[in-house]
């Protein structure tokens, strides 16, 4: 599991790679939360292009970060999910609260 956060003009992109399950969601969560709270980006995109596996732990991770971003006055979006990961996101109806690009 790898996370690389880049920031440009108030917008940030967190590029994730590897697998998202309950075991490693915890680490991702604390790293993303630390960034959101300290950098306070207006927009944060989570790039799932490099994610090879995701179960419902990823849904909890995205929903939780979306909530935190809103509380900090920002907005979260999700980018580049592979077709299989899109199915998991769709099942949760996550597109109703987070923009998926």
């Amino acid at each position, binding site marked *: 599991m790898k996370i690389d956060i880049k920031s440009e003009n108030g917008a940030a992109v967190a590029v994730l790679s590897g697998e998202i*399950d*309950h075991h490693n969601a915890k680490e991702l*969560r604390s790293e993303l939360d630390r960034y959101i709270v300290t950098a306070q980006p207006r927009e944060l995109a989570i790039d799932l292009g490099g994610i090879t596996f995701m*179960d*419902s732990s990823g849904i*909890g991770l995205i*929903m939780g970060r979306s909530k935190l971003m809103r509380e900090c006055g920002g907005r979260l979006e999700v980018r580049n999910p592979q077709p299989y990961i899109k199915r*998991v996101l769709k099942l949760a109806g996550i597109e109703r609260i987070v923009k998926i690009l």
Partner: protein
Amino acid sequence: MEILNEIKFTMPSLSVNESTARAVVSSFLVQADPTVEELSDIRTAVSEAVTNAVVHGYRHKKGNIELTVRLLPDRIIYIRVKDKGCGIADVEQAMEPLFTTAPEEERSGLGFSVMQTFMDKLKVKSAPDKGTTITMRKRLSEHGD
């Protein structure tokens, strides 16, 4: 029903074993030549079932999780995930989408919905203090034949 092949293994309820279970299932399924989508579906369902045992079944005390994977005739894959943890008092309620007893862990409450959607059949047998057994089946397409 005739069992063409079977693997059974036991692992302690450590969260790191969620990926161990996925890897074992993937290796076993190679012989059945599933499509990428079928393999993803089964791996995801197994991940959810094992996570349930780790997060809910063995929430208060650690224990063992038993995973059984069978290849049955007609390209049917049978999966059983069994724990001897705290069990579920109300299985029907637990299977409702978005129901979770672990919101502090950011569990989305979608584990059973994922298993139901990605597999053909799902059965949950549980009793408080006795444990939970999740049984799932999926029939693979004929593409590999």
